């Protein structure tokens, strides 16, 4: 929460800018039709793998280049050799998976198109203010097929906050800001849908079917367009995905203790030690490769993220005691006082 405070004046400023520079439309019946149709033409219906146990074989995508680049939510639906893509006018394409941003859980697909209607991610609108009216378009429940138009919903941005969400054992990797919506966009087929303002400008991408953690409420949220643009750029530039999933500024980096863990590739990657950094607390305490960290003090952990979060609960100088499983036996080691975190580089402040 304290992290949000500095951005509040910025958002206020952005909101004022929006008010000053957008021409207000008169409130009249049917005003959502024009932006709705504009946006719907830039949204595609995607069909892939699934159809069992609540995992749908369909979702939504957003066209972001006239030559057929599509951003969508990274999901099991895309885990298929053949991803079908149907445009607003009913044209059907085979889509290829170009890559994925595992942190933002977004994927970039490509179809062989030309002169397609699209949104631009190179100049995304500033963050929308809380209270802004929005439109959400998606292939919800798969009700639209062929040339039938995706569904339009309306709502209001209820909050813009860091995402803490999960579905069962799957914990959302992305922990940055999302728009929380007051309309129900958490429906089968909605992931990857588009969120626009009432002028039809892209504000974000509808998120996955997740529950808020820890309240358990099904969350209707959208990834803001600036994050969408960053993720899209990252995939196109071919940068490897971040190895630490879902790290936030609040987590404590175990490398400060000299713990180099195995690559964190899964939602629940176990906290296996790959190696210890030379002349570190971990090296001094004789931690070994393949040791599995299972508790910090008296609090158990079941993943690398858990370890980072438990370490973050300690204050600098607190004694660090880890429980490990080594060759089938539980071993307890003391690593001495927790080192303070380094000062953050001011150039890496959130934008």
């Amino acid at each position: 929460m304290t992290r949000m405070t500095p951005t509040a004046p910025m958002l206020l400023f952005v909101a004022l800018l929006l008010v000053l520079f957008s021409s207000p439309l008169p409130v009249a019946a049917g005003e959502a039709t024009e932006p709705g149709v504009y946006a719907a033409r830039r949204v595609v219906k995607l069909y892939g793998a699934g159809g069992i146990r609540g995992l749908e074989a369909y979702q939504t995508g957003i066209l972001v280049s006239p030559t057929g680049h599509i951003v969508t939510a990274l999901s099991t639906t895309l885990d298929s050799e053949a991803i079908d893509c149907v445009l607003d006018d009913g044209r059907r394409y085979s889509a290829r998976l170009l890559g994925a941003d595992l942190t933002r859980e977004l994927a970039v697909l490509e179809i062989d198109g030309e002169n397609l209607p699209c949104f631009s991610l190179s100049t995304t609108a500033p963050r929308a203010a809380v209270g802004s009216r929005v439109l959400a378009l998606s292939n919800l429940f798969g009700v639209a097929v062929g040339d039938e138009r995706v569904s339009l919903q309306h709502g209001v941005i209820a909050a813009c906050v860091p995402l803490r969400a999960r579905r069962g054992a799957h914990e959302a990797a992305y922990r940055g800001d999302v728009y929380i919506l007051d309309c129900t966009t958490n429906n089968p087929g909605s992931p990857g849908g588009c969120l626009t303002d009432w002028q039809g400008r892209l504000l974000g991408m509808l998120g996955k079917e997740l529950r808020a953690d820890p309240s358990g409420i099904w969350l209707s949220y959208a990834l803001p367009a600036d994050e969408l643009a960053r993720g899209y750029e990252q995939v196109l530039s071919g940068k490897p995905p971040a190895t630490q999933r879902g790290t936030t500024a609040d987590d404590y980096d175990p490398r400060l203790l000299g713990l180099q863990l195995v690559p964190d590739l899964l939602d629940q990657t176990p906290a296996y030690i790959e190696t210890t950094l030379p002349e570190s607390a971990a090296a001094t305490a004789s931690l070994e490769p393949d040791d599995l960290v299972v508790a910090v003090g008296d609090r158990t952990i079941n993943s690398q993220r858990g370890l980072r979060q438990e370490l973050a609960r300690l204050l600098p100088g607190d004694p660090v005691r880890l429980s490990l499983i080594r060759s089938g036996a539980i071993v307890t080691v003391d690593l001495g006082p927790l080192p303070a975190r380094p000062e953050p580089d001011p150039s890496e402040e959130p934008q």
Partner: protein
Amino acid sequence: MPRLTACRCWPVALLLVVVVQLGQPAGLAAAETTAVTPEPAASVSVDLVLEAEQQRTATIAAASKAAVAIFAGAAGGGSGVLISPDGYALTNFHVVQPAGIAMQCGLNDGRLYDAVLVGLDPTGDLAMIKLLGRDDFPAAQLADSDQVSIGDECFVIGNPFLLATDLRPSVSAGVVSGVHRYQFPAGTILEYADCLQVDAAINPGNSGGGLFDASGRLIGINGRASFEKRGRINVGVGYAISANQVRNFLGVLKGGRLADHATLGATVATSFDGRVVVSDILESSDAWRRGLRIDDEVVALAGRPIRSVNAFKNVLGTLPAGWQVPLTYRREGRPTEIVIELAGVHTTAMLADIISGGRGKPTPPGKPGEQPEPPPNPLAPEPKDLPEAIRPLYEPRLGFTNFYFNRVELERVTKLIAARSGRGADQPVADQPDARRSAWTFRGRLEQGGSFEIELADQAASISLPTGVSRWEPVAAEAGLAAEAGFDASPPGSGGMLAALTLWRQLLLDGAAGSGRMIYWGQQPLAGSASELVDVLELTTGAGRARFQVASSGMVVAVDFLLSPTAEPCELQFRFAADSSSERPTALIVHHAGREFATFLIAEASP
């Protein structure tokens, strides 16, 4: 999604199922710090907003008056909407099915009214009821739902969760999410074809209530929602039966019938190149008789283009059984238009079984809005079980929901005809002057060349054509002698033109009191018109079955005659002088077996 393969074995990890308590508060709490409300840019827009808001509340207040809260005791309840000042209201089949013949309905004025079930359409999930006790009920106006588009503002007014215990309806607002949606039926019933999708909340109990546009006109009947992991509460996805589908069924519902939906007798599929082609067809179907075959591409149906299988189902799903609609198909690049009569999806017995709850129990996957367990058979009660106010307004009959209302409609239309033909509506047949019973004669020439003379009398009819003279006798026909004598279809090639004309004369002279059994059949598009609906009376006699199209002026404009259920019909269309008040036509066009038989230009008629 690229599969991530674990590079080493982590057996212990699989055993560790430990819930981690997060050290962070729920993210939502941070919302306050970013709450920013933009100030309106100018006072002008504030006025516009206030004006729009006032308009909105006024519209909702007006529309709410027509909202009906239906209570069926332990069986549940739902919503409805009044569509005429004399109390006819629409609701869902799945709302009245548990409620039965009699129900109590609350209006926004805070009063309860007795209501009686009038008509049912189980396939389309529609029902008509009539509220009793007033002739000045506030009524909603049916709009043209094809004019509705995505993004339009809309309101749902009804009785969600049966909250309206003070009888005042709940209102939810939203936008139209999609149009021309298709929602699969549960078995053969509760199909939502060509329906409207809205994000205004439709919850259990809203079923049967009205969906209104921004100006308060009725664009649909709410009845269904997509539910999933959260249980039976709205998730921003609700569906309404379109007002245009409702309009197609108003006649058959008002006539107390048990409505059935149309089938083409053929199935379609999408071909590899995206065309909609006939994948199977019954050789007994009218479409087959008119020339439709497997692999023909269906281009248009009932005046609407067909570009997907859904579009085909959408069009078909909004049409009542028995309607005649144009169909355009393409074979080897050449388009052909035919007119086909659509058969019913169900038999009368199947429908009776459905409404009695035998098979009609609305169950998933349809998941309609409201589905309490129906009692054994509320739709066939003992008259003594009905409230006193309802008893005289209910008459059971196989194939009908409530035959009492068929009498009401039949009387309305025959009065129209009588008024038109100059016969006093309340005059019994026996009181008619003898002159009325004299033979009717028509003389003139055929458009195809040559002259004709037709004589119609009580005991016999005859026609003189260039090809010869034909006679037809109703007595012989009823005794079944006609087929033996070989002149039942006389004149030859017409399919029974003389029989059709004789029954037409009987209708004009005797109304419903002539021989045979007459019912009010419903409404159908006027022959040769796509939009105007006219009343249809059906007369079944030993000679065959005739359907009469009656315009709102009381003019009988067309007759459809069938000698037997499997025969090709004889179709008569009458033409009248534009300024004439006479009931006598100036021309008669006769079709049979999809071809024109003759056009009779009438020069002289008597009496």
